[in-house]
């Protein structure tokens, strides 16, 4: 069928059969999966290789279709209208001589891409059909009806090295060394405690006295407690000096540190 004739028939008079076909297409609009699907259907009526399809004619068919659908008050999804707008634009590009100042893609490029898309969609539909026509598992060929489940037995071998063993033993025997900090509070004298204690005592002592004599009872024998108490007491002494309540001195390196109440008070 001549292209022109077909085109005319869309616009003006057409045979009853054609008209019916046309309307069936329109009523069927819900049956199309979007504009590309519709375009593919329309292109079929050109009965040519999709590579040679006339995109211009296709655009006109599509636009005519949309017009008629609108006149029949058929609701068209937005994407159909967007496609219509795009095709109208494409049509104008194809019809008008190229504008040299426009560096956008040419009408031919756009048309070629649309043809490619149509051909690709048609190609995918064809192979989808071929795929579904294949023998299928559970319909044409079958897997084992009573698969045996492979029971998974677990054989566990335990590993331990001499090092693990020795470290475990060492861990048990030195467990007390690793007591958590909170548990060791009883052998830690805090600076606050030392300060509290010295504040009470310093007022009575006007003489130079070694800070060791300020250590609380029970903190002088056990080395851990003694170290902690000494540090705390020394820090507390410095606090008192800073506050101006005491004076501190040390005759020489490693000599005893002595402290006394400030004389002004």
């Amino acid at each position, binding site marked *: 069928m001549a292209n022109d004739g077909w085109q005319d028939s869309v616009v003006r008079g057409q045979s009853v059969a054609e008209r019916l076909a046309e309307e069936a297409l329109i009523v069927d609009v819900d049956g199309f*999966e*979007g*504009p*590309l*699907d519709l375009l593919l259907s329309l292109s079929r009526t050109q009965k040519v290789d999709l590579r040679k399809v006339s995109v211009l004619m296709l655009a006109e068919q599509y636009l005519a279709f949309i017009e008629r659908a609108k006149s029949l008050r058929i609701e068209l999804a*937005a*994407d159909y209208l*967007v*496609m219509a707008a*795009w095709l109208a634009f494409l049509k104008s590009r194809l019809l008008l001589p190229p504008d040299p100042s426009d560096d*956008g*893609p*040419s009408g031919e*490029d*756009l048309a*070629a*891409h649309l043809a*490619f*898309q149509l*051909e*690709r*969609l048609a*190609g*995918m*539909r*064809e*192979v*989808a059909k*071929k*795929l*579904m026509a*294949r*023998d*299928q*598992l*559970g*319909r*044409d*060929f*079958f*897997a*084992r*009806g009573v*698969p*045996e489940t*492979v029971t998974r037995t677990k*054989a566990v071998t335990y590993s331990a090295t001499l090092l693990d063993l020795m470290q475990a033993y060492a861990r048990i025997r030195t467990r007390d060394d690793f007591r958590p900090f909170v548990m060791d509070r009883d052998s830690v004298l805090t600076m606050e405690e030392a300060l509290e204690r010295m504040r009470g005592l310093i007022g009575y002592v006007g003489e130079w006295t070694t800070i060791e004599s300020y250590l609380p009872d029970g903190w002088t024998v056990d080395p851990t407690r003694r170290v902690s108490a000494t540090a705390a007491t020394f820090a507390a002494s410095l606090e008192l000096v800073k506050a101006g309540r005491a004076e501190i001195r040390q005759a020489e390196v490693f000599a005893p540190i002595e402290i006394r109440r400030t004389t002004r008070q």
Partner: protein
Amino acid sequence: MMDDALPPAENGPSLFKAPPIAEQERMIEAMLFASADPLTVPQLAARMPHGCDASEALAHLRKRYDGRGVRVVKVGEAWAIRTAPDLAFLMQNEVVETRKLSRAAIETLAIVAYHQPVTRAEIEEIRGVSVSRGTLDLLIELGWIRLGRRRMTPGRPVTFVATQDFLDHFGLENARDLPGLAELRSAGLLDSRPPPGRVSTVEDNDDEVIDPDDQSEMFDE
């Protein structure tokens, strides 16, 4: 993962010679018969005694079942025993009624199979409509497609690929055996060809949320 490397249970490291090849063939036969799912050579080998050559035994077995009522078929990297398709008429009792796939699902499946790895945006570009979540979900649920690697393009979109189950279901040795693949390729229909005037990729708009306008973007430049 317990597979390949480990020698099986009684592995006095080659204290014993490997069983004769005929015996190994029996083992493969038993394992393939017992399993509903295809098994890879490493999986087979892992269950055989030390020193066995699963590949060779498998080759023997294949030959033995040539032309029989059941066949040893290759499914991707794995092997399975399946009934010969010409005997389908005997199997009416075994047919599992399956839901008929929608056209959208079938086309989407084909696009994934032929274009894999493929992004959702690419599927939509090919079909010219947006892909509903349900379609991809259904195919994933059927075990025919799965997520592949993310595409290393802006947005890092996920891709979809066909699975071993897909190959198994359609009796394909591998994805290269898809019907019509060569024709599609030589016609250039598997090329990714961005619309003219677009700067390269289409993937960038493969967001989780596909709004209805999305597909119009494909055409509007």
